[in-house]
């Protein structure tokens, strides 16, 4: 087994890199720590950019292609920064049956963005989730961190407006 020599070069003196490095270290900087480390990056920075992918590859001594492969395979990871506000619409079965497509359509029409996209001004990201665990409240959505249950298309648009322009 290879041992790691010296401290890894942090991409900048941003303290968050230290947190990322700590996760890798906790797992002995082994390649199997890849997903855990990417989780930490996303938690700290909100998304994974090229800098971060290169750093993770060097700390864990795995090829960049493998880091990129994992980062793109798992839906939870995102390579693009999110907007200042995020609206997550649940598209799980219970919510689908109870009208989630209408919620999505309303938001798509109003803000001209599709799921996974962010408005050009960086204000709003539209995301989807598979079951928020609130199926009893279907259709459900999350605006920033507030869970909205049994919500109608008009209400979600109003709620988004209030979130963006308080």
């Amino acid at each position, binding site marked *: 087994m290879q041992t790691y020599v010296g401290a890894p070069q942090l991409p900048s003196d941003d303290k968050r890199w230290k947190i990322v490095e700590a996760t890798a270290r906790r797992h002995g900087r082994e390649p199997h720590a*890849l997903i855990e480390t990417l989780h930490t990056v996303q938690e700290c920075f909100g998304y994974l950019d090229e800098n971060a992918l290169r750093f993770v590859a060097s700390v864990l001594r795995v090829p960049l292609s493998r880091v990129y492969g994992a980062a793109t395979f798992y839906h939870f*990871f995102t390579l693009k920064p999110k907007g200042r506000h995020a609206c997550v619409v649940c598209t799980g*079965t219970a919510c689908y049956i109870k009208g989630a497509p209408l919620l999505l359509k309303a938001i798509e029409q109003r803000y001209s963005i599709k799921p996974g996209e962010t408005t050009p001004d960086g204000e709003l990201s539209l995301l989807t989730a*598979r079951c928020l665990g609130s199926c009893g409240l279907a259709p459900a959505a999350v605006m920033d961190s507030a869970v909205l249950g049994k919500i109608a298309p008009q209400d979600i648009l109003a709620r988004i407006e209030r979130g963006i322009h308080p």
Partner: protein
Amino acid sequence: MTIEELRKIAETERAAQKKFQHHVCVCIAAGCLSGGAEHVRDALNKEVAESGMRNEVLVKGVGCMGLCSAGPLVTVETAVETAVNTDVQMFASVTPEDAPEIIRSLDTGGATGGDLAAAGLHPCPTNVPFFERQKKIVLENSGKIDPERIEDYIAHDGYVALVTAITEMTPLEVIDRVKSSGLRGRGGAGYPTGLKWSTVAKTGEQQKYVICNADEGDPGAFMDRAVLESDPHRVLEGMAIAAYAVGAQQGFIYVRAEYPLAVKHLKTAIKQAERMGLLGNSISGTRFSFHIDIRLGAGAFVCGEETALIASIEGKRGTPRPRPPFPAESGLWECPTLINNVETFANVAPIVRHGAEWFARIGTEKSKGTKVFALAGRVQNTGLIEVPMGITLREIIYDIGGGVPDGKQYKAVQTGGPSGGCIPAEHLDSPVDYESLARIGSIMGSGGMIVMDETSCMVDVAKYFMEFCMSESCGKCIPCRAGTQQLHGILEKITAGEATPADVALLEELCELVRHTSLCGLGQSAPNPVVTTLKYFREEYDAHVTGDGCPAGTCGCGAGTRACRAETRLGAPGSQTSGEVTL
């Protein structure tokens, strides 16, 4: 930790709780939390403090009580000295403003439902079929204990099974007990749990692993999440017993990153169990050591498949590999690995505690015990239920679920998520067990149960699940990667009203191909929703391809004329939803 020490902790905890005359439990699991349950708990605590009742009233946050659609839920339990049973009153849709009235109702004791309703509360009777028809094993503590306190779990006989197993039983005896209980895997396939354990135990290797599959991927199901949030120690105890039985020293819980509360409760529980010597080195002074680590999933449905899950723990892309070798022989880092579902592990401690015969008496001949379902969709009472195997679908949907609301007509119930099928009214009296559900074309699955009424188009539902499988296909094998795309394309064509009967024939042919040639369960079962809807709701497919339009009126245009269809696709005024969405 010896059994006596465990008893002592339990007694101390029980005595401490008994000092309070009233127990007020607030559900703080995900469903109620989204309705503001935390504020309710804070308000209740404040009210108790202000009315000087700190020594009489215990306010505690507990796990899911089941009737999630009526949340936030609060129960009030008052110890009545003379009665055998204590008195439990449940309140639904509680707001922080209700706190004073709830605390006031404690003093009046015998307040009737009418009195409480007059005071602005929503009393919720618990002697109704929703609660009485259930049978709780896995969820026995859910909604009763504080999931963040190990003492509360121990006070409810927690860890007795683990300590008994490692101090008084041989691994073989443990396996035999699980075998003769008839417990089968709750993750979907229903493989006999005892048999799996003995395969892992028989391998001579030194290093073995136990993995708990908490990657609950069925979109519309939340059973495992509720168990982890409400009673995390039960899962840890089950895993530790399994580890002792098969000879493993290290365990992993692979849990979805989308379940932050479950992760938090698990982390707390592991720390507490380690501090008490119930996990870690030399448990109960024996030579048995067992450590548990958490690994976060990252939102890939296929990682619920056991070989993909193992790849993911190893830090790789989660793609399945051919079996054999099965993980029981060669799994994590090529070591023998036992993988079971959350609910499977949650059944283990009660089986060890009460014996195999007790468990085997519940359920049917081949399906023993109970099953937890997340009941949702077009049904009156939605939430989390646990029922004995062998109960009929009709009893679940009409007695427990309260039937289809708004005077609508029942159409189908979907079990098993993207790998399952849609069951029509003619099979409502079919018992819920592994074999019966398979016979009618569906599967038990992990426990998603979604009721649909006349407003759901079955072709659209099939398309929904196919879209899911298509986007979740890992891409490793061609039948699934390309097949799900083609199947989805045909379904799109049908719902758009542009298909011909030849397309339906092609759909059927392709279903057979994808089912028989895909590498893993995802591809093999992806055609199921299409196959069952074709079998039971063929007339809906026919209506779409013969120009009669969508019978349920959900697919674009109900009338089905060509002009109208074109308009719908362009999203022009007059299409079904535009009136609602333009403000």
